[in-house]
């Protein structure tokens, strides 16, 4: 029956401050190189933090070749389109599609889904109304009258939160079930979970799942700073001196399909998606429960769906955003669930910042890399583990995964918690050209 369909991960793609492409980003992470540095897109010397992990020195055309499209979407969409395109390319389905008859192709397209976790609106888009506001000078009638002369007529279409869904569909002819999740930090993680659920339930035979966001802008950094969520001096997850998070930007995407299809077309199977869980703590916009109750429930649901016991988890990729409350409650939840049998715990935001809606999907891809390479990268900014956590296996030094299965955690505003369980495909573990790299493992 369809509910038991297994889900293969056959493509990944990502861009963030740490690099363009999954291999480049993994190389930075495993070698302890952080992309967090002084923000360059505006003079942030007087901002609550001067730090960010920007995508710099990357030509938009290197991300998306089609220049016409650059005018129709915003920067975050370009990141999302790049990542989705890379994941689809990597999966090899494009070549496979060329072998299909017209009828089979039509069905193939109708059975290909698109799920995106989008950052939604940003402040920058609204600045396109500033010349009009200046021209109107407080006269609202004039504002309306001179609208057409001052604002790009395509303004709304450029800012649609679902632009990546739309343009991935058009560019890759994916025409099946779809969704665009605007759930702040957990959007990307939920996009992966929903894509997998759709394939598992037989609503689609394959789906690309994308998370993308660009939170690095002056107003957002300022507001987060006022709420004491930004670190002025770096992202140090689980450290006793941690002071907050640091933003990154970018996107990550995975191509999921039925294991049967992937095997039939002899695709390179990177891993298997096993399960997901989602729960809210109902704590309002900003608060989290100190005991991590929602996170614990999300993990329990995910493990149940995956059919994996806590002992079966080989590595935990924590949300590890570096804020005092989130890290502490995350450690609490993990301690309660795993007791003294916690597998190695790590987090990656020290390397490429917090991508907000993009973070969960990127962490999932990095988890897959870690399992496939047999390395749990250390956290170079972790100087002194918070003693409040008790024994807690997060460390500066790299570790080895306890099994081929990872638990990936993602948390966000609204008391949201999402957990994903993924297994690396051991059968193909040696296929990557970079598989022998052991840099960073001491």
């Amino acid at each position, binding site marked *: 029956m369809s509910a038991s369909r297994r889900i293969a991960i056959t493509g990944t793609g990502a861009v963030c401050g740490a690099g363009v492409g999954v291999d480049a980003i993994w190389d930075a992470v495993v070698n302890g190189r952080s992309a967090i540095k002084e923000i360059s897109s505006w003079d942030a010397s007087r901002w609550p933090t001067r730090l960010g992990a920007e995508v710099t020195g990357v030509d938009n055309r290197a991300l998306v070749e089609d220049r016409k499209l650059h005018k129709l979407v915003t920067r975050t969409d370009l990141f999302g389109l790049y990542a989705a395109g890379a994941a689809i390319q990597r999966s090899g389905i494009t070549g496979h599609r060329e072998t299909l008859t017209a009828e089979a192709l039509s069905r193939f397209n109708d059975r290909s889904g698109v799920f995106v976790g989008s950052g939604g609106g940003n402040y920058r888009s*609204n600045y396109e109304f500033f010349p009009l506001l200046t021209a109107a000078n407080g006269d609202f009638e004039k504002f309306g009258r001179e609208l057409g002369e001052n604002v790009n007529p395509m303004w709304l279409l450029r800012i649609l939160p679902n632009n990546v869904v739309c343009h991935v569909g058009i560019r890759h002819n994916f025409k099946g*079930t779809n969704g665009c999740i605007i759930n702040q930090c957990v959007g990307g993680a939920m996009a992966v979970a929903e894509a997998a659920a759709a394939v598992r339930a037989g609503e689609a035979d394959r789906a690309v799942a994308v998370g993308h966001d660009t939170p690095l802008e002056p107003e957002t950094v300022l507001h987060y700073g006022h709420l004491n969520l930004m670190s002025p001096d770096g992202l140090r997850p689980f450290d006793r001196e941690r002071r907050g998070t640091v933003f990154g930007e970018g996107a990550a995407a995975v191509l999921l399909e039925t294991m049967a299809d992937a095997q039939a077309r002899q695709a390179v199977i990177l891993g298997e998606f096993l399960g997901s869980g989602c729960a809210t703590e109902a704590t309002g916009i900003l608060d989290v429960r100190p005991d991590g109750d929602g996170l614990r429930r999300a993990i329990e649901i995910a493990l149940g769906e995956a059919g994996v016991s806590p002992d079966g988890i080989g590595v935990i990729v924590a949300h590890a955003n570096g804020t005092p409350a989130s890290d502490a409650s995350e450690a609490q939840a993990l301690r309660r669930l795993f007791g003294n049998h916690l597998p190695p715990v790590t987090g990656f935001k020290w390397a490429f910042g917090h991508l907000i809606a993009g973070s969960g999907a990127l962490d999932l891809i990095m988890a897959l890399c870690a399992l496939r390479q047999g390395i749990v990268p250390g956290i170079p900014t972790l100087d002194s583990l918070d003693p409040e956590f008790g024994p807690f296996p997060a460390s500066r030094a790299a570790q080895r995964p306890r099994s081929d299965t990872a638990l990936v955690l993602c948390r966000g505003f609204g008391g949201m918690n999402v957990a994903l369980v993924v297994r690396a495909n051991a059968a193909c573990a040696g296929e990557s050209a970079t598989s022998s790299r052991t840099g960073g493992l001491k």
Partner: protein
Amino acid sequence: MTPRRRVAITGIGLVTPVGNDAATTWASLLAGSSGIAPITCFDARGFPTRIGAEVKHFDADSILADRKLLKFASRSHRFALAAAEEAFRDAGIRPEPSTNRRWGLSLGAGMMGIEFSEVAAVHAFCARDGQFDPEGLLHGEFPADPVAFCRSQTNSGLALLTRHFGIQGYATAVHTACASGGQAVGTALKVLRRGLTDFVLAGGYDSMLNPLGVSAFCLLGALSTDNDTPERASRPFDVTRNGFVLGEGAGMLVLEDWNAARKRGARIYAELAGDGNSLSSYRITDSHPSGDGPIQAMQQALADAGLVPDGVDYVNAHGTSTVMNDRSECAALRAVMGGHIDRVSVSSTKSCMGHLIAAAGAVEAAVCALAIRDGIAPVSANLVQPDPECDVNIVCGESRGMNIRVALSNSLGFGGSNSSLVFRHPEDVSAT
């Protein structure tokens, strides 16, 4: 294998331009009363379009005695909170400490979180000459408002609803423009079938009736400019139609496991029987003239419900009152319904209440449930000269009393996302 779970609609809450609760909205729609009038919530005198479908005389404080919560709620969040309160009351069930982890939330959330007053404040401090200079944000008098920041988050509606009502299970907020509300209800159906929850509050909310929202659609030339005849401005399927009318509001449904609802003696409006969901992948705003995209969504929804097109009695069309949408949607309906098309009654309730964007699909799902309950298809108002290219059986003149066993609702969005939902009369659901 265990039989697939069935899902009952047991509660409805509406805040719309034609009524601030479900009963008033439904009565207005049946009477064909228009909620469209000159825009009053800002000075729209200079705009090409000066009419809209506003929610009127809405007082959140009288519905939700929680002033602290309301401080964090924008206008559209308040619609959502009020509609949810009505839906829970109507269903006679709500999250309790013993059940709140089995309650989920699936929302079609509005697109624009940042309020115009914030944009104007940033302009005043940072962009007097029209160009943004971030230094102004650091000015001592800049009114940086953390509460406004909280209101503007993409999932602040989700956060407020889960907190106020104590929903602690699965929670999602989706946005695919005009398909959002339909996709949110469809997602709720899937989440219930997956067994992740036993109850879901599902719906949508939106308000783009502000200077930026109205500007956005005016710039695209998508809105009717019939400023002198607002009540006639939205006329889906009429050959003289010239754009849609922007509305605002919220629609919320309480969905629950069918057997559990029966067991507790709940009044069931209808079964939420099928969901179809497709991507047109054609152009960002244009729909394919053949109806490709919506065709697959409707076919999927019917197949998902275990139905054939001949079973459909009533279709609540997306029916925006734009030439392109109406023609493409009718082509899709003809393709799906085949020879049965003349026996399907079709109407667009946007003719009365305008286009509620992210809320539209959820409100129209409620309309389908009410149509099944009362055996009456609401009128598609203002249809005087039918467009020959929209040759379907439209409910025109007045609402049509008829036996509705199956209803279908379409929501088709900018960006090409298409949602179809199928509803079945509760008497036709055999006990499982």
